[in-house]
């Protein structure tokens, strides 16, 4: 049974989630990987304007992700 997977865009501020999958082209995957976002990573959503960009805490630094991108990152709680 698949654990609750949802796009990062739908996560509420204050929640901590784990990345399961990045459904995007290589360029984007790589860009995110460079910043530390790979499957298995934990991150916390700090702030978000849906629909709009969200701020996350990733490995100790703050990152802003566009809405389109947040929809392509699948996470589980």
């Amino acid at each position: 049974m698949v654990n609750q997977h949802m796009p990062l865009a739908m996560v509420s501020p204050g929640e901590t989630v784990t990345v399961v999958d990045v459904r995007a082209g290589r360029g984007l995957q790589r860009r995110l990987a460079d910043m530390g976002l790979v499957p298995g990573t934990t991150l916390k959503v700090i702030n978000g304007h849906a629909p709009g960009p969200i701020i996350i805490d990733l490995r100790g630094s703050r990152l802003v992700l566009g809405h389109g991108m947040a929809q392509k990152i699948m996470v589980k709680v």
Partner: protein
Amino acid sequence: MAREITIALAGNPNSGKSTVFNNLTGARQHVGNWPGVTVEKKEGRYHYHGYRVKVVDLPGVYSLTAYSLDEVVARNFIVEGKPEVVVDIVDASNLERNLYLTVQLIELETNLVIALNMFDLAKSRGYQIDVSRLSELLGAPLVPMVATRKEGNEELLREIVNVFEGNTTKKKIKLFYGSELEEHLTELEALISRDEELSHQFPPRWLAIKLLEQDEEVLQKLGVSNE
């Protein structure tokens, strides 16, 4: 007789690299905290104990993949320009992400000195860093610094020379990528080592890793276009 050496400054954007550059070269430069405003390759010089050191400030990058122009510029300078020493400026309050670049610099088999900058910020957040242990694990000298207060500058100058002279006790490390990957890496490495030109230009293991990453620039150099 002054010895001439070239060193490169690498590091994430916002890691305080420009401040370190200013401290070393005394030049008044832009201390930008937004990547891209820092312009191209900045160069400067300093003298230290009989050495004439040329400092090249590389663009702030998160990684050495061929994804953006900045990264390609930084990487090419290290690979082709072959600076004698590379100083990696690491934001101590943000170690996890900053070390991602460090690891890649290690894989490029550069002569590395790691500046652990913004040490005060890390401390104020309650972080406790075992500097000597970390240095051992990374296989490179680690210099804690607070560049904005010029703390650690002397030590940095010293370590740069030490590394250049080969006076360092650190043993270089190698990352283990798991048996599956390692199998293929070893195979590729062997094939590459047989190619004289390639193995002379690039560290074979690094090139092997880049091939598995399908790095566009490397593939171009080998005469293939990617997808």
